[in-house]
């Protein structure tokens, strides 16, 4: 897989990271280097091998359906650049 400059720009946009146009060629080259490194894994035959999701055998921890959290409006809003009447206030987004 090869990442061109347009793809690098698109990935940056989707990630909401501002990248100056002159920085895009270097970014695309870095992507390609990383992907090339990862693609070495393609040389392995992993047919009939279950994906390993955990180093030690573990089950997904589960929780009972009990309310144990919440009621901390002030804390939730503490880092918000703007909050009004208990809401986060953000620049208008309308469909």
């Amino acid at each position: 897989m090869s990442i061109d400059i347009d793809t690098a720009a698109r990935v940056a946009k989707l990630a909401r990271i501002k990248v100056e146009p002159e920085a895009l060629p270097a970014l695309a080259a870095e992507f390609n280097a990383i992907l090339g490194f990862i693609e070495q894994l393609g040389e392995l035959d992993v047919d009939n091998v279950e994906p390993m999701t955990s180093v030690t055998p573990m089950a997904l921890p589960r929780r009972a359906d009990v309310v144990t959290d919440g009621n901390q409006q002030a804390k939730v809003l503490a880092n918000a650049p703007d909050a009004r009447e208990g809401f986060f206030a953000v620049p208008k987004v309308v469909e």
Partner: protein
Amino acid sequence: MLDLPLTTPKPKVIAGAKQDWELVIGMEVHAQVASNAKLFSGASTKFGAEPNSNVAFVDAGMPGMLPVINDFCVEQAVRTGLGLNAEIHLTSAFDRKNYFYPDLPQGYQISQLYHPIVGEGEVLVELGDGTARIVRIERIHLEQDAGKSIHDMDPAMSFVDLNRTGVALMEIVSRPDIRGPEEAAAYVVKLRQIMQYLGTCDGNMQNGNLRADVNVSVCSPGQYEKYQATQDFAHLGTRCEIKNMNSMRFIQAAIEVEARRQIAIIEGGGTVTQETRLYDPDRNETRSMRSKEEAHDYRYFPDPDLLPLVIERAYVEGIAANLPELPDAKKARFINDFGLSDYDASVLTADTASAAYFEAVAATTDGKLAANWVLNELFGRLKKDEADITASPMSPTQLAGIIALIKSGDISGKIAKDLFEIVYTEGGDPAQIVAARGMKQVTDTGAIEAAVDAIIAANPAQVEKARQNPKLAGWFVGQVMKATGGKANPAAVNQIVAAKLAL
């Protein structure tokens, strides 16, 4: 499922300027799991709380917070799957669907794209006219809901409430087996009914606990059959997805208006572009959600915070063993055991509360009479009060008592309606009320004969007229009923009047 051969409904056909067009519809229904806490946090799911008060740091997307899955939500997804005769996947997994929006603080939604917990199932969708269709379910997966953005509180700002963020949803995805707006609504009604029976989703559309995305396309007659024979989508038209509708009326209107829009494009020589659209009920039109299109690259990948969800066969069997009787089975039983009509059985099984009420009444009386009194008198009276069956001031035992008095001949049908009103408004034991207020039907023919004699004696002119025109006998019956305060047995009065007038 019922073993009856189905008469399938005809697809909706819209006549274009050039040819007829058929509709093809698939739906994604988002059903909120009826849980106390959220899918991955311990915050409450209660509707209508202070903004941002039902929020854990996990929901707010704070760094370092880890999701822990709610056991009950897993169970409800399995229950719903079993209720839709679906395959349950013992191993499923969670993926991240990445996009930016102010009401999604994590920057991704945790969903199940690659390995959903529930696979293929089916649901029987009945239309009012006796036709029915089996709609195939493709999958059900668990996912997080997003928060709520409010756009009309400030001219320059949107306000965001994260109370709904992270609440568990079951997304139920159908195959494109739905062929018209009415069928689409009937499908959602049926899903809601099944989930209410199962107790997995309360189905409250007004609060947004049940919402539907609708995929609509149009095709020439004959094309759909080719799709069904081959399962090849190439035979169908390009679809558009109408997002997030929370009313049966809007679902139907949106499908109709979207189909007409597509037909106009195709007949005008254009091509339909696959896209996400929004229905505007005020203008009755759909329009493109361009912002969604731009972000359509969701870059799904397995969520590294969550191990695969593995459940045991025995766990699933345990849930299956405790499923309640479902709507199709209950309806069939009401028809077979109580001799109800298809329609009456449908209405009585529409929700569990109505069905339970009816069964409690029918347990001690005649099933058909019980159905008539519940459907006509009780539902009618409740409607007048804008009350729900669960708020009925009359208990099943009281209604059964009234019906028993009719069956035993103690009261006439007319008096029964008066008695119904008394019991409904004042309460009390029907039999005691009848005894205390002297409402018992007079079946003593001697007493009725005396009343008839008195009226004949007092109205010689009417007697003469009635002999010429026997239809006027009804006037005498009316007078006797009046004289006896409505308590005379109407059949006996009719007979005696006819005999005395020598008709």
